[in-house]
């Protein structure tokens, strides 16, 4: 944390004019991005691991794609009585120097109304929107329905 503040100070000293702080999206690395493709027009789920390399929290607030008319951030929850449900997630904080996984049975992007029939092996671009207005385009690999640990 200390070194991070020092870096910011250093950057401030080096850049006397203009904004010092880079956008949240610039510090987030997306890996393991894949979509579980389901038959027909059934909603699919998108998964990705987001690593935040900044000393500030990055907050994911939305996602969108030209390929899907609807992209929503969801979370599957499991109650103690064994009931499984899905809830909408308004925002997802990625801790400073930490990571968040959108993974099966947890956070995921619910993808609906594909613009065209997708095939296994296709790449789909989904743009992640962060709280400060910055954006991160991510390529998701389309995987079969019965993929367990994709990529």
């Amino acid at each position, binding site marked *: 944390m200390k070194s991070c503040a020092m870096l910011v100070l250093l950057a401030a000293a080096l850049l006397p004019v203009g904004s010092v702080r880079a956008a949240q999206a610039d510090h987030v690395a997306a890996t393991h991005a894949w979509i579980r493709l389901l038959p027909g027009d059934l909603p699919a789920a998108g998964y990705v691991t987001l690593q935040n390399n900044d000393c500030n929290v990055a907050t994911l607030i939305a996602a969108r794609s030209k390929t899907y008319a609807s992209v929503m951030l969801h979370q599957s929850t*499991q109650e103690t009585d064994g009931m499984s449900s899905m809830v909408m997630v308004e925002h997802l904080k990625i801790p400073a120097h930490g990571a968040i996984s959108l993974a099966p049975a947890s956070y995921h992007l619910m993808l609906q109304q594909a613009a065209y029939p997708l095939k296994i092996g296709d790449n789909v671009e989904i743009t992640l929107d962060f709280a400060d207005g910055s954006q991160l385009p991510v390529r998701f690999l389309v995987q079969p329905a019965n993929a*367990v640990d994709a990529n």
Partner: protein
Amino acid sequence: MKLSRLVHLAGLSILLIATLLLVACHQDQPPPWQLSDISGHMPDLSFQLTDDQGKTVTAADYRGKVVLLYFGYTHCPDVCPLTLAHLHVVMQRLGKLSDGARILFVSVDPTRDTPAVMHNYVTAFDPHAVGLTGSPSDIEALSKRYRAAFTREPGNANGGYEVSHSSGIYIFDGNGNARLLATPADPQDKLVHDLHLLLSPGDAT
């Protein structure tokens, strides 16, 4: 001299006690199952529904098969596909034995899950999977039989809706007797182990 004899005797007694304990343990062998044993706690498999070919089927059609009963719905993009994908891997790991097993995926959303939709869905996962749908009352009767609950959540602006549902996998033997209960969180190894026992010819259970 006396002391060494005493030590010898003590050693022998310890050996004797250890042997007795071992024998006792062996007689009181723990059940072989790694999943939850529900034998005698859940009713036999019984239902009348429509399979993914549009045919009326009953539990009797699956006698002789080890049945894995799971409630879900096709518009469930996350947990249901994950569970079915795991069961697919379990079937693959069982090899030829898997021919004796059927995954019965029962829809808790019969309004949207027609036999055709169910057919495309289950075949995307595993050849041993069968999609079952039916009238809301028949499906409710089956889920209540196994104390599996489901609730349709309020819809969104696009007319879409989610269904919360029990996520247990109920396992029945070839005679339709309820035997085991698995959860999606159970490791594949446990399922493979227990299904191997249930599916092996001449199993002592």
